[in-house]
């Protein structure tokens, strides 16, 4: 049945892409060549499976086919070099991926290698671990598709040329290198959450990456903390729009529209992370999200707790974005004047000149403080900087 064969190929692609690519790259060290070979294998599957039936172990079939392509490529090049021992080593891999360790963590770590420019890390993960097209990734990151494709090619070439390791890392290597991976996963989620195409599919993919990190590095509380954070954000995301597609800010969201199952999973993960006794920025951010989620049960938000968490976050990161969020929490605890003063401090950071949430927060707090002219000017800036038409509309209706 062709339809079933196509579905089987698609399922294998979704679940197995990163695992298969990691295995192929682990031996060759050349991501681009591994991608080409795997792409050929998927194309071959779509040609063969509808005719011959789906193999018992689709992933093993794909791995064998891809490895054959890679070997063909190496053989062609091997006429110019004495690569026979290398070829034999590659060919000695067992056929069934299930009998092999999961190399995807190595793949994720490679994507955050110092050889890869930071802005290319999240896009590279989405491509090599999940198999997403460069053009799809480009839209989410607001980059021209040709430029994104070039960046990805350059990143893979740099990885190959610097001989980046795709071997399975030891526990120390994970501890040292994971901190570069997590912000890239977070960036992938942020890009996905701002891009509601395909029902927010990209945000879902990034969440899957975070879960993968947590599952592959269970002793790293920040990995688990990030998964908890993204689960909380993803649980809330649908409530950010009403039935007519209008923007609904967090404070006005109906907790009944939050995804209770995702929130429960987030809470579980956050407890696991906390039990390891090494707090960090992702755990604190997850705890902030958790405090907001508690409104479902308590009917109110514990802003004093939120402020304490943002104090810790600000001290740890010095991030101007955290400073904005902290100012908003401060306004809830100490009044809008105090919040505005903190926002003015944050606004002096040149990196925030075009940061829309800063101006939206300023507009809201100034309005509450009765500073009408200031509120109108800030609202105007927030409208002018909005990308989301629903947010723009929401702000314009406040006038």
């Amino acid at each position, binding site marked *: 049945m062709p339809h079933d064969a196509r579905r089987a190929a698609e399922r294998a692609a979704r679940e197995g892409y990163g695992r298969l690519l990691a295995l192929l790259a682990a031996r060759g060290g050349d991501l681009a060549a591994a991608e080409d070979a795997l792409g050929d294998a998927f194309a071959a599957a779509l040609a063969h499976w509808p005719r011959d039936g789906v193999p018992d172990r689709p992933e093993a079939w794909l791995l064998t086919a891809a490895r054959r392509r890679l070997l063909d490529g190496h053989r062609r090049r091997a006429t110019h070099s004495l690569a026979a021992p290398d070829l034999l080593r590659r060919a000695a891999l067992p056929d069934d991926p299930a009998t092999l360790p999961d190399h995807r963590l190595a793949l994720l770590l490679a994507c955050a290698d110092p050889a890869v420019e930071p802005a290319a890390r999240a896009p590279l993960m989405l491509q090599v671990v999940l198999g997403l097209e460069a053009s799809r990734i480009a839209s989410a990151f607001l980059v021209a598709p040709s*430029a994104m494709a070039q960046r990805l090619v350059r990143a893979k070439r740099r990885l190959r040329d610097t001989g980046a390791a795709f071997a399975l890392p030891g526990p120390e290597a994970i501890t040292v290198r994971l901190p570069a991976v997590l912000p890239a996963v977070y960036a992938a989620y942020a890009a996905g959450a701002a891009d509601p195409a395909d029902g927010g599919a990209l945000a879902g993919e990034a969440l899957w990456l975070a879960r993968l990190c947590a599952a592959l590095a269970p002793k790293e509380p920040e990995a688990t903390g990030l998964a908890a954070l993204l689960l909380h954000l993803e649980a809330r995301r649908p409530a950010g729009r009403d039935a007519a597609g209008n923007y609904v800010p967090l404070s006005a969201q109906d907790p009944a529209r939050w995804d209770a199952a995702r929130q429960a999973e987030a809470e579980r993960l956050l407890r696991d992370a906390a039990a390891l006794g090494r707090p960090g920025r992702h755990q604190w951010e997850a705890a902030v999200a958790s405090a907001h989620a508690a409104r479902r049960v308590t009917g109110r938000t514990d802003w004093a707790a939120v402020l304490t968490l943002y104090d810790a976050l600000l001290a740890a990161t010095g991030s101007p974005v955290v400073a904005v969020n902290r100012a908003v929490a401060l306004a809830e605890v100490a009044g809008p004047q105090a919040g505005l003063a903190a926002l003015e401090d944050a606004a002096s950071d040149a990196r925030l*000149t*075009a940061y829309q949430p800063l101006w939206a927060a300023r507009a809201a707090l100034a309005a509450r403080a009765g500073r009408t002219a200031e509120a109108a000017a800030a609202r105007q800036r927030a409208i002018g900087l909005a990308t989301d*038409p629903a947010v723009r*509309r929401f702000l314009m209706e406040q006038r």
Partner: protein
Amino acid sequence: MQAMLMIHGDTARWNALSPEAVQGAMGAYMAYSESLRQAGIMRGGERLRPAPEAALVRVGADGAPQVLDGPYAETKEQLGGYFLIEVPDMDAAIQWAARCPGAAHGTVEVRPLWDSPG
């Protein structure tokens, strides 16, 4: 670098908007222009009158002028206005294009300018 953000929109859809909707759209454009100015990157920007008011001018190799009524292209979306901005790179230009209200009701074409010599 400088980039031109060219706003292509469906004139018929624009004409069908209610007066309040037009006023809202104008307000959004005003806020956007203001944000470009505040960011210190605005180098110019104007709204064009409707494309059917255009005249098309060519002069043949023999020197014979030819003047036709517009629009230039028989497409639904027509160039309705532009912003000229000064940005570090194409990525930044695309970010600003995404904030342009025209991106929500039409298409914003981002075209980098040649560097002026000297």
